[in-house]
């Protein structure tokens, strides 16, 4: 990629692009931050586990079995991670399709978050593949398994990553000082956004549709033919809650990067997102209620799994929904953040209930992830945050675009 941009970019304080990239690769700022102290050892251990996994097979590090072939790496990393990446398609929809310019300042960081989530969670998928060298087969047509929901999801992951990269690419061009490239790439944004939203609606629901054939294996309270729609609806507030959560942290950690104007705008943005979350959660809850009544699931309520279901619905759907409503009415910023965290916990709970906890819920030996599976999951998340931080510190994501780029708009 660097070679392509080389002839256009001449704006890096007179440095050549390779030299510029080399200087940018070096770490900046303090080394011994609390985050680094925790994440570096975890990443080191995680990488060792990954080596063992490829050397000795999946069974050496995971608790997966013939009955439960998909565990934490799919249920959490992929299915839950992609739900949290849903913020990108919702925010680009609001900004580029509905032209809500109010949210423009969070587009880049949300798209970056979404893009990295897909890169790393699709990466996590590679760890879970038994024969990863064949991963290219559905792309090159060996063979096209078009009857498979996973085929759709795989293609969509790949295409959506490209769409998000295009959406984010003007920031890269501004960083490299590539004026010509920026102009071309900015022109592609609206196309990429429309394509990206279409892909997102299909694969957010597609992740739920993956489990449609596992009808006899998932607890009836979580299995219904409406899983795809429920997954799509919940990805809206899952993604936006993540945007609120990430924004809260970014505004603290990267305080000096964000302009005065955007700091002030943040409250209004969070306030607006809270309202959308409340509405989306109400729609989601209503859908869940319809499904519950439609499937005549009353008999399961007075069982341990029934209590678990009620806890998810009341504690992590209704409660955060009310909190969002209330905090929106009173504009209580702290309460909005609490609602966002509760919502995120609820989405994690929901996805795990479908994919792990409710899957083979009646089995004699239940699947419980090993410590090693959890460490690898944390490794993936930590490396993602490292890359995120590296990009934020270098490219105009949170901070303002350079003057020349602003003039072109």
């Amino acid at each position, binding site marked *: 990629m660097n070679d392509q941009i080389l002839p256009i970019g001449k704006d890096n304080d007179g440095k050549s692009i390779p030299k510029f990239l080399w200087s940018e690769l070096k770490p900046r700022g303090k080394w011994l931050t609390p985050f680094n102290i925790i994440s570096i050892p975890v990443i080191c251990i995680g990488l060792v586990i990954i080596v063992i996994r490829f050397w000795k097979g999946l069974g050496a590090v995971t608790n997966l079995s013939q009955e439960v072939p998909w565990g934490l790496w799919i249920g959490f990393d992929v299915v839950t991670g992609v739900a949290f990446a849903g913020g990108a398609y919702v925010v680009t929809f609001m900004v580029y399709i509905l032209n809500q310019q109010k949210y423009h300042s969070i587009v880049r960081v949300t798209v970056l978050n979404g893009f990295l989530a897909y890169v790393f969670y699709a990466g996590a998928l590679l760890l879970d593949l*038994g024969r990863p060298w064949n991963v290219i087969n559905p792309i090159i047509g*060996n063979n096209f398994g078009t009857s498979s929901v996973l085929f759709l999801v795989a293609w969509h992951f790949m295409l959506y990553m490209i769409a998000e990269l295009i959406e984010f690419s003007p920031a890269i061009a501004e960083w490299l000082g590539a004026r010509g490239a920026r102009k071309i790439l900015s022109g592609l944004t609206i196309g990429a956004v429309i394509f990206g939203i279409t892909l997102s609606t299909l694969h957010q629901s597609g992740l739920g549709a993956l489990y449609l054939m596992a009808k006899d294996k998932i607890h009836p309270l979580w299995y219904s033919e409406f899983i795809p729609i429920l997954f799509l609806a919940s990805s809206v507030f899952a993604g936006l809650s993540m945007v609120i959560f990430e924004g809260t942290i970014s505004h603290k950690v990267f305080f000096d990067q964000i302009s005065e104007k955007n700091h002030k705008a943040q409250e209004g943005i969070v306030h607006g997102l809270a309202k959308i979350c409340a509405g989306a959660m109400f729609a989601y809850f209503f859908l869940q209620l319809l499904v519950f009544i439609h499937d005549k699931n009353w008999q399961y309520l007075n069982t341990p799994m029934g209590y678990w279901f009620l806890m998810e619905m009341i504690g992590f759907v209704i409660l955060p929904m009310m909190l969002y409503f209330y905090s929106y009415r009173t504009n209580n910023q702290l309460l909005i953040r609490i609602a966002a965290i509760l919502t995120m916990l609820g989405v994690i709970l929901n996805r795990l209930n479908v994919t792990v906890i409710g899957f083979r819920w009646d089995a004699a030996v239940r699947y419980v992830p090993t410590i090693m599976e959890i460490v690898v999951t944390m490794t993936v998340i930590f490396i993602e945050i490292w890359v995120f931080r590296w990009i934020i510190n270098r490219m105009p994501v949170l901070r303002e675009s350079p003057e020349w780029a602003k003039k072109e708009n």
Partner: protein
Amino acid sequence: MSIDRRHFLKIIGLAGASLAIGKSFGAESEKKGEVEFKAMLYDSSQCVGCQACEKACAAAHQLPEPKDEPKVGIIRKTSETQRSAINIFNTSKGEVFNKTQCMHCNEPACAAACLTQAMYKTKEGPVIWRGDKCMGCRYCMVSCPFDVPKFEYHSSNPIIQKCDLCYDRIIKGQIPSCAEACTAGAVIFGTRRGLIAEARKRIAKSPKDFYEDIYGENEAGGTSNLYLSSVPFNEVGFKTNLQNTSYPALSKGFLYTVPSVFVLLPPLLLGIHEATKNKPSNSEENE
């Protein structure tokens, strides 16, 4: 070429006539090219539990010979080193044997799940696994209602192990090794249609000795492995709550919406984009 009314009616009439008689033509030509699904019938009333089928299966597929014997109270499962297993159950009619292996569904969930068609329903009936295509995602295992595909968790180059109805032997005109090895006549090989007729005949002949249903006739939309038993099938370890329609049908509805969304959503989004574009920014009031 212009088509006048008379000409048009003529064509319609011809088309209608050919549609009406086309059925019988079509059926005949279909029969010539059609390959009937091959199948196996396991009649538990004939089985003596000698495990000859298991041993022949292991030998035919270079797998270790099973050492353990069927025992009441213990369920021997198929595994990544064993494609077929005989079990014995204490039932309402005494001890009854049962054999498990891949059911070879008419519309297999595993093949519909496979994004590379590594799991593949051959036109002869067997569902086979093709290692050069498989990426080891194990979605077939998630989808299979019978939990048949087994994965080598302790290998860096894992394969999916499952019965393939000895596909390599079938296309050479031979019969599966387990059916060949069975001297008791409990495992017989034939066409699916023929074996269902045979099973019905056996039930009709001695209705007291057999449970009334053939397991696999309707389960999961019908399978190529069919079972006769003297007792209801839940007593011999089979799932009897499976749906009688095919499992791939469960995700068909979702997959059919994909093209519509792809065609309809982008223009809609573009339309909204254009409609909202030129307005002065009034975002403050909107939210």
